[in-house]
């Protein structure tokens, strides 16, 4: 019998193929964060009196968090709601393909998309806004675990959120509202985050986005920019802790809420 691993890998390939062929998904999920970065970066250009810092550079770093949320959380949430509605999940359930193979395929899709998204955003940041790439291995190591924890947390939360969505038609709109609101609260669109009222920072600190954005700013901005963070420091340990916590919460929510179908019983 074909193993779950093999089927999962093939599901990944077929998921990527479908995503790439779906122009709406390509434009609204994949290219939208890059478009926002172009706009924000060009509008606010250079209004920092901090050495080695410009608004465009700050946006380039922070917007990676938004890109990951967009490709991991939104793609996962909308994708599963769609699969539940159009018969993809029902079909798979009637075949020897397992739920594990299905999720492996989704994870491959999300990981590949997110990696491509980050490359596009870095490309815009480096080529258009002169954001230098870090030269020390330590920062790249941080980038690695930060990326991994972010993708897993957002992907799992996307799976959980798909249970809240009633229909695939509205999934994009329903999931984007909290996501865009969180970007404002979390210092992705507004930097430094200390401009925000304290309660907003407190609310944002509960969710992963603030920590993701903070971590990517650590990776791509000079050390001195730590002054502009809410705590006046990068807080790498806390970032890892919060994101790790959300991975666990996401996994538990997935196991509790995942449904094969959108009808009673299933």
């Amino acid at each position: 019998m074909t193993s779950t691993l093999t089927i999962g890998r093939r599901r990944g390939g077929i998921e990527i193929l479908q995503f790439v062929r779906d122009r709406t998904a390509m434009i609204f999920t994949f290219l939208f964060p890059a478009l926002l970065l172009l706009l924000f970066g060009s509008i606010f250009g250079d209004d920092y009196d901090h050495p080695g810092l410009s608004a465009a550079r700050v946006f380039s770093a922070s917007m990676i968090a938004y890109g990951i949320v967009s490709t991991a959380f939104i793609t996962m949430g909308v994708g599963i709601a769609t699969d539940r509605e159009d018969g993809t999940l029902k079909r798979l359930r009637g075949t020897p393909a397992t739920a594990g193979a299905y999720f492996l395929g989704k994870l491959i899709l999300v990981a590949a998309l997110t990696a491509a998204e980050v490359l596009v955003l870095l490309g815009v940041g480096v080529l258009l806004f002169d954001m230098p790439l870090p030269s020390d291995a330590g920062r790249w190591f941080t980038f690695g675990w930060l990326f991994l924890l972010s993708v897993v947390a957002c992907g799992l939360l996307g799976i959980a959120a798909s249970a809240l969505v009633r229909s695939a038609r509205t999934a994009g709109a329903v999931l984007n509202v909290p996501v865009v609101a969180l970007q404002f609260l979390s210092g992705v669109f507004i930097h430094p985050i200390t401009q925000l009222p304290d309660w907003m920072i407190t609310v944002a600190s509960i969710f992963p986005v603030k920590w993701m954005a903070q971590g990517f700013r650590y990776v791509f901005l000079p050390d001195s920019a730590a002054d502009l963070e809410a705590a006046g420091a990068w807080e790498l340990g806390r970032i890892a802790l919060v994101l790790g916590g959300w991975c666990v919460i996401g996994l538990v929510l997935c196991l509790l809420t995942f449904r094969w179908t959108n009808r009673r019983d299933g």
Partner: protein
Amino acid sequence: MTAIKARGLRKTYGTQIAVDGIDLDIATGEVFALLGPNGAGKTTTVEILEGHRRRTGGDVSVLGEDPGSASRAWRTRIGIVLQTASDAGDLTVAEVVRHVGGFYPRSRPVTDAIELVGLEDKAGARVRTLSGGQRRRLDVALGIVGRPELVFLDEPTTGFDPEARRQFWALIRALAAEGTTILLTTHYLDEAEALADRLAVIAGGVIVAEGTPATLGGRSAAGAVVRWGGDQEIRTDDPAALIAGLVGRGADLSGLTVSRPSLEDTYLSLIGEAR
């Protein structure tokens, strides 16, 4: 050999009873049709047999396993043709068939599966661009690409034009000729009559009649109606004797017909009684 065996199958949703004690015996290699009006419990029954729904009570064995706790190996032996799927729109016909075929240990070659359902011309077309009937034929291809021993078809020809239905019937006959056991549900009596070795009528969650298309509901024993000469009509249990008598009298036998109640008459009276 029994492919499907059910005893006292029940399914309730709260206080609502969808299936109220059904017994089924379907032999290996048989084409069995489940007929019944909307809401009779056909789809619920089939989904329980497919392992897509949990039953509330009763014993069920499908290919020797309980579908409620069936193994992956069991899944390789059954094929399910979905009724309303609209998935994989951005893939081509050949891509989807290849992908789904890859789940099974001894699947049909992609071109064979596509040819069986008559979609050769559309193999390279995006699924989104298929007509309704072509889309359903693709669903059949996906249901049989793994060479299942047992195929479930839930109202497979709903929305087909007459020609597409005839082609579809030929396909089912070809599968049956390979020895595949087929359980289909349908609204169409002519379809059940054309395809099924045996059929059962389900109404209000119970089976109200079971038999071959020729004998269902006492159809073969029911009186025949003899019509002749334009407006003459007699109901009789012995049409041969009646006709011999008519010939002896030199009656005008132009337009002579002898008919048993149609399957539709029998069906309508069966589900009428059940209501």
